[in-house]
């Protein structure tokens, strides 16, 4: 079973509603996982970037299996096949 990534709002418009990606059987660090997505979908870099400082987000929330990624190790969280990642956009306009 692959990793399922679900995008919402403006992110859905850039990438689509969901992606399914196979990762190595022993998992992959989130920083490497998101780098792969950024390579395929460079417009995502408006909201998420990977720099020498690591993964940086602008108002974006990332949940892994329903929990915020900062509680699972942040960019060093290990993503495994079968995980569901939700990426929520920032709120604008109000």
């Amino acid at each position, binding site marked *: 079973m692959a990793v399922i990534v679900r995008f919402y*709002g*403006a992110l*859905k418009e850039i990438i689509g509603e969901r992606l399914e990606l196979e990762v190595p059987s022993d998992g992959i660090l989130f920083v490497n996982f998101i780098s792969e997505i950024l390579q395929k979908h460079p417009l995502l870099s408006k909201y998420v970037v990977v720099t020498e400082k690591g993964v940086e987000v602008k108002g974006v929330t990332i949940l892994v299996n329903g*929990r*915020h990624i*900062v*509680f699972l190790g*942040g960019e060093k969280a290990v993503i495994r096949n079968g995980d569901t990642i939700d990426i929520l956009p920032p709120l604008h*306009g109000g």
Partner: protein
Amino acid sequence: MRVDLSSDKIEEEELTDSIVEKFIGGKGLAAYLMYKEIKPGIDPFSPENKLFIFAGPLAFIYPTFVRTVVASKSPLTGLFCDSYAGGSFAVELRRAGYIGIVIEGKSDKLKCLKITREEKRLFECEQLRGKTTYEVGELFREYSVLTIGPAGENRVRFAGVYIDWRRNPTTRPGVAGRGGLGAILGSKNLKAIVLKGWFRVDELTKGVDRSVQRDLIDRYLKIIEEDVMPGIGIGGNLPVFKVSAEAKILPTKNFQLGTHELWRELADEAWAKVLVNRITCPTCPVKCGTTIREGGFMTERIEYETVAMNGPNLLILDRRALMLINNTLNALGMDTITTGSILAFVTELCERGLLKDYEISWGEVDSYVKLIYDTAYRRGLGDILAEGLARAAKILNAEEYVLHIKGLEIPAYDPRGVVGMTLAYATADRGGDHLRAWTVGAEVTTKLTLEDLVNLTKYLQDRNAALWTLIACDNIPSNAIRPPDEMIRIYIKMLNTLGLNYDEEGFLKLGERIYNLTRLFNVREGVRRKDDDLPPRFYKPREDTGWVITREDFEKMLNLYYTKRGWSSDGVPLKETLERLGLHDL
């Protein structure tokens, strides 16, 4: 100006330079005076409680600083509460030469306060008893009017304070809606303040370098035009609705779900089709005040929170129904966020068979409107609901289904999606509130660490506390397309033209000082770590997405927050923190 309703005495007071330097205006002065003057443990409805109505020092002198803060010990939470409204009141207050009004005591009869160049007096106004906010505004059309509706008179614990409400208004009406401060005015028997200022700008800015002032105004207006106005959409904060619905954080069915398949009926694009006018506050070019007309219905100032909390949260997806609810609540003078939360709570109890002798189903607009009237006039079940969600839930033995923090009902962002908001809600100084730290905005870049998540909350709380001394409008920095730093630097320069000497670091420290002062007020009233907690529903996975906040994760966040704040593990500011912020002598 200090107004004692017990003795009908009106006096003027000069604030010392050191207090102005330390707290500036708006929230800062209100918080300082509240801490100094409100005795711990008093009943918010007692004559001993005081209400503080303040402008900021930039009002009228620089554009957009039009907001008025109303602050008091809240009858809803029993804690510090500040609530902000647009409209013309702050500008007229400054034009009358005042930075604020302190209301104290209690009148035997219903009174109005009138402030003009010719007279400053209290007068009896029994004929205004029971009048709606619109009716009072209409009666004093030539004035800036701050008033309460029937709900405030009846001490509904979530009655608001209303500025410039009238039919076909020429300036944007404002609402200080949260925390029940309208009920404080009601408890003191003060129905309204009508005000017309008289000073010109040049009379209020003696000694200010005109060319510097002009340059700052020009630079500021350019940023507003280029960066802010494109983000305003049709006005208000309705554009947020679409993002919330798509991100599945839109409260639906008392926060049991996060979106509704018909949400587009209430999105800003749908409202834009029936928008007829946009108006603005004095001195502001933004025009965020919306007037909507659809069929025979017309409404002013419909906002995201109102639409979300009384729309999908009650399974209402009909614009006209929302307009009817908005008009009813604004006329009676009740907070739309709290009301939406309470109506959803009652409906869920009925659905679960937990409420005897009362029936209501999701989406029953007429029944909801009737219940709103019953609440405003304290009839039947409405008399219990008028006590606010927390008290009503205790009476009805149904605390499992409430969505509030420290007695203030949660606004319209489900934090199980946007987790940063959990800390923002739990540590907001007036209870479950989103405006102290709107962490879900895009303006700040953060790393994917717990430390950055916590730092963001603290930074925004401090920054907003500082901005609300001025009082800057929430619609402006928060909506900027670029980070608001440049705008804040201009604000500081504006402030310094009035003789103050702030830099960015000092300005942020000012905000931190105020945030600790409001915490001290709450600590004095008994608030501790146990109160910085979430409603039970947020600790359970949401049935549509599985999103959850575990208690362990939340506690981790709170521990780090207290450390960053310099508070004890029980949430009390440490002595060294107070010394660093110049609060130890309080």
